[in-house]
């Protein structure tokens, strides 16, 4: 076998000056894989656009969400259609309120419920699952049986009961959704914790006398992050769906607040009068946002789960 002397020397030189090969971290690797997934990247862009729309949308329109355009009231079907001239970009609803401003507000509420709900689920669920999994034994058994029992309750009905009893407000919605959304998360976190807790780094921490709670917070939870991130992007659309479901029934957010579900319900009630835009715009935002979240979740799962390539 011929040895390429020149190349060998070059390599030796390289070694001599210790030219480092740039290593790729787990997250750099994941980012690269994520960016290669076209559907996920497009979804991310769309989602950012929706987010910007919900934050800055009210600056574009001259109308506020509560203002009634008296000039077209009573002739919504003829005059309330989307138009640039009178400033109602998305038209108006049957009360003469600007639909653009309403959609902006509905988007804010729906996204907020989705994100806050998912956040509660992530924090509570991860901690609960990590504690149950790490402690093990009887405590684990009892904690997971509680989750089992809570999971087999038809939570939508309990949630509605909660809203009716304590008054319908966004705050109550958060509490209610937060109460039920962490269950799945806790199971996933527990499963992951069980595989982690016998790893050497945990053993080392135990051996050096680190307190269990510190081990959970500093060693277990950071290692759960990958799964948690993937799951929470899939959780946000679930929360949005739940909220929209309840608001569609008229049991969620109350006027003058609104959300996608409430607006779809309004639009669906008014569509026989020929004001289709009332249904179309909220539904459009609802659908593209959900789509985006699902694709981003899929993309993240593929990116962060190397064994599943």
């Amino acid at each position, binding site marked *: 076998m011929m040895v390429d002397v020149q190349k060998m020397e070059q390599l030796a030189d390289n070694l001599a000056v210790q030219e480092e090969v740039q290593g790729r971290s787990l997250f750099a690797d994941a980012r690269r894989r994520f960016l290669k997934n076209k559907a996920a990247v497009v979804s991310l862009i769309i989602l950012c656009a929706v987010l910007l729309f919900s934050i800055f949308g009210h600056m574009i329109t001259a109308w506020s969400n509560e203002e009634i355009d008296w000039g077209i009231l009573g002739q919504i079907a003829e005059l309330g259609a989307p138009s640039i001239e009178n400033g109602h970009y998305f038209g108006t609803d049957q009360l003469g309120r600007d639909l653009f401003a309403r959609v902006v507000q509905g988007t804010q509420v729906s996204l907020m419920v989705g994100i806050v709900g998912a956040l509660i689920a992530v924090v509570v669920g991860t901690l609960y699952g990590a504690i149950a999994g790490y402690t093990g034994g009887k405590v684990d058994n009892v904690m997971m*049986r509680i989750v*089992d*029992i809570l999971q*087999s*309750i*038809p939570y*939508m*009905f*309990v949630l*509605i*009961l*909660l*809203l*009716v*009893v*304590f008054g319908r407000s966004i705050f109550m919605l958060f509490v209610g959704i937060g109460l039920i959304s962490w269950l799945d998360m806790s199971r996933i976190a527990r499963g992951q914790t069980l595989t982690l807790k016998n790893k050497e780094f945990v053993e080392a921490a135990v051996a050096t006398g680190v307190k269990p709670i510190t081990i959970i917070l500093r060693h277990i939870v950071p290692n759960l992050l990958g799964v948690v991130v993937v799951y929470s992007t899939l959780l946000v*659309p679930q929360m949005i*769906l739940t909220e*929209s*479901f309840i608001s*569609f*029934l*008229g*049991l969620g957010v109350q006027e003058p607040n609104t959300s996608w*579900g409430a607006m*779809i*319900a309004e*639009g*669906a009630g008014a*569509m*026989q009068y020929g004001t*289709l835009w009332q*249904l179309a715009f909220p*539904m459009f935002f*609802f*659908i593209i946002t*959900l*789509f985006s979240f*699902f694709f981003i979740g899929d993309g993240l799962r593929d990116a962060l789960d190397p064994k599943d390539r």
Partner: protein
Amino acid sequence: MLSYILRRVAIAIPTLLLLIIISFLLMHAAPGGPFTSERPLPPAVLANIEAKYGLNNPIYVQIINYIGGIITEFDFGPSFKYKDRSVNDIIAHGFPVTLTYGFLSFAVAVIVGGALGIAAALKQNSWLDYFAVGVSIGAQVLPNFVMAPILVLVFTLWLGWLPGGGWNDGQWNHLILPVIALSTSYMASVARLTRSSMLEVLHTNFIRTAMAKGLPYKVIIFKHALKPTLLPVMSYLGPAFVSMITGSVIIDMYFSTGGIGQFYVNSALNRDYAVMMGITILIGGLTILFNLIVDILYAWVDPKIRY
């Protein structure tokens, strides 16, 4: 097996009791009793009414009485708003309606979704496969409250083919739109699950062996591949059933079918707690029962699972 069933039942019963107690306590915590009205009743009258409904007892006695009533006589108590009928009347009136199209939707979701998933897996990367995958992705973002208005818009307002609501004693054309609206997203989930599960099974060794020894294709698919394919799908049926029942509230409301969902929402808006509780418990009981059946069936069908 028997001990597994017993253990499973032993979890189901406390769950149901917990559900009853939670809803009872929630109802009790509600500000203002069921008889608070704009014109306050004289205290003596109020005390009489409360005595009649047993509201003057301590709360644990009330709960025990309520549970006892449900168990012994299947009695959910009187409605607080409609003086002339009890919760039982309302359930007896609305439940068959919900059950009819709920059962149909469930059947459609499982049969059509399963068939679509299997066909897609057998003809992987054909137009049928792409169609099935496309539908199942699309239907993820089309929950029943989005499907229902779209369907009514197209088939009632534009085409005028089907009625957009009402029940009419369950005449077939009144059933079509509710069933489609309710079943679509579950059908898609079943199709997706079946497809991926079938693909996995088709790549296992025992199927390759069956192929290699020259068994007819149909025998391989229906006799060997079908059962392991349906196992993961089966475990989805429990959750699907639950969310379908929940979704039926939307269908009842939107299509004005007169099912229990409509009563449920109306009672929620009227603060008629007794009806809300009755329906919640009925549905909770059904859910728990269905999950129990699915779990037991699963353990019975899958020889790999031994509890």
